């Protein structure tokens, strides 16, 4: 067997190859990658100040909610923006995580720390089972299946009163506890949400810059090309959907233990659709997009507390404007402006 080894580097003197490697994109690649890591850690360090400088508990509660929303929107962005699959049931996985963790706690006294991984596991397994038949097919089958799934879950949350508390919501959920101290105030809960969101954002960043992350993006851009280089497209999509749902489940568990309450309306199909809007607004398929999406998703309803109907209209209008003017979403605005500025300087 003749071994053809086109990547062995025999065509270039090895030292020269290594030199050009060091000088050229390799180093830029590494710096570019680590700069997102550095940015992430710096931003989260700055966020640590929130409980101290916030004027009241309400502001801290918004920060907690924003970070939970971030996990949720980032999980959907992983699936939608990088994996190219649309889930119309992300709020359902969020709710499944919340109710799984909450019911385990209320009915069987399972601690929040165990409920959190359990929520991830249950949401992940549910996604795996849904993805198994639907992701094999090309087309909108996953969207349809997740839409139905979310509808079923909402009915379940409402009707299974003995377990979920029904339309009145699930009451009496215990907060996280740390060495016997209940983290039952917004300030005390903040470190948990802060750490969870940091670890998840870090995990997503690492994942995107790995072999699996590249394969995921490749499958989303061109499945035929991905198959041809030995990528199991179905396997990659199933993994992505499972991870995405598990992350949404974690967001749900955090939500239920921080608020110590869950209600079916929080997890409806309209919420799933709003989450898609937030992914698109922030910048679908960009790493930082979900941060912007989560900020908007958390802040705008607070600003419009007295005009509930205006909120939906504003979101819809905002999405139209952003996607027409900046198709890449808000995270793409700096780049778009830079390009426009450059072409104006050098026509």
């Amino acid at each position, binding site marked *: *067997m*003749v*071994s*053809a*080894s*086109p*990547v*062995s*580097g025999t*065509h*270039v003197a090895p030292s020269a*190859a290594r030199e*050009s*490697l060091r000088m*050229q*994109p*390799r180093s*830029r*690649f590494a710096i570019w990658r680590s700069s997102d890591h550095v940015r992430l850690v710096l931003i989260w360090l700055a966020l640590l100040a929130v409980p101290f400088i916030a004027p009241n508990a309400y502001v801290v509660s918004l920060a907690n909610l924003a970070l939970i929303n971030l996990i949720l929107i980032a999980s959907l962005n992983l699936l939608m923006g990088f994996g190219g699959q649309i889930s119309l049931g992300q709020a359902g996985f969020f709710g499944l995580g919340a109710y799984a963790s909450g019911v385990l706690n209320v009915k069987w006294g399972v601690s929040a720390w165990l409920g959190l991984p359990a929520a991830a596991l249950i949401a992940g397994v549910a996604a795996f089972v849904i993805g198994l038949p639907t992701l094999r097919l090309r087309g909108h089958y996953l969207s349809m299946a997740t839409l139905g799934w979310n509808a079923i879950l909402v009915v379940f949350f409402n009707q299974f009163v003995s377990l979920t508390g029904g339309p009145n919501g699930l009451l009496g959920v215990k907060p996280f506890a740390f060495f016997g101290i209940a983290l039952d105030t917004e300030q005390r809960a903040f470190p948990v949400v802060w750490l969870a969101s940091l670890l998840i954002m870090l*995990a997503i960043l*690492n*994942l995107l*810059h*790995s*072999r*699996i*992350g*590249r*394969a995921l*993006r*490749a499958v989303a*851009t*061109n499945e*035929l*090309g*991905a*198959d*041809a*280089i*030995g*990528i*199991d*497209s179905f396997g990659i999509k199933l*993994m992505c959907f499972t*991870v995405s749902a598990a992350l949404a489940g974690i967001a749900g568990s955090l939500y239920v233990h921080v608020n110590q309450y869950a209600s079916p309306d929080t997890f409806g199909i309209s919420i799933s659709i709003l989450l898609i809007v937030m992914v698109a607004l922030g910048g679908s*398929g960009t790493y930082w997009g979900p941060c912007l999406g989560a900020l908007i998703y958390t802040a705008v309803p607070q600003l419009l507390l007295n005009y509930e109907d205006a909120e939906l209209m504003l979101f819809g209008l905002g999405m139209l404007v952003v996607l027409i003017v900046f198709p890449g979403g808000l995270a793409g605005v700096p780049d778009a402006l830079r390009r426009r500025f450059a072409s104006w300087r050098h026509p």
Partner: protein
Amino acid sequence: MTEKLLQVDDLTCRFDGVTAIADLSFDVSVGEIKAVIGPNGAGKSTLFNVIAGVTRASSGQVRFDGERIDHLPTFRRARRGIARTFQNLQIFREMSVLENVMVGRHTHGAAGLMQAIIHGPALQAEEHAIVAAAMDLLNRFGLAGKADVQAGTLSFGQLKMLELARALASEPRLLLLDEPVAGLPRAEADQMGEIISGLNREGMTVLLVEHNMRMVMSLSHDILVLNNGYRIAEGTADEVRRNREVLAAYLGEAEDA
């Protein structure tokens, strides 16, 4: 040079009553460049798709390195060592040039989901090896300077090179090239021809479909001529050129084109 890398036996492929390939048998030996030619509709593309696993044959067998592969999906055939390029390019346009080639080395990585998330030393070492191998290939194809550029912005000729580099990144044993020089200006076509024969000198086995007769005649060790799904001739460039049936069915029209 007698070891058979690819064996196609009694292959038939029908779509809705149309027979695209009829009872076709041929081999590709280790280390050879074999070309498949024929007028439009001769069944060349179907043959490629059947070998790559995109289309299922109605009957017949395909063996790679002695083992049957006709039941395997595309990605499993790629993992066995069959890499391909596409006539109309299947590039990951939104990814960088370097990332396109890095993806090509997918099958050479072992790091799983957990390692990817934790990004430990093992994964970083693997990543460095992938980047180094990809940069080596980009250097060879004169694309190193474009490594960080979005692939979609490259010229058509550069994209053809990039797709070949991506295919090579998997270190395949058989390279399927679907019209590698179609649409390229003469200088770039010649450059591509030199690259292909260079790869072959290093031991690469190549099966190619191409309309450019100059390229086919100068590159190939062996030429398979199809017409209406049937094999009408097989042999060296000289043999095929002298074959009456080929002249009648094909070369007459093709050289005008």
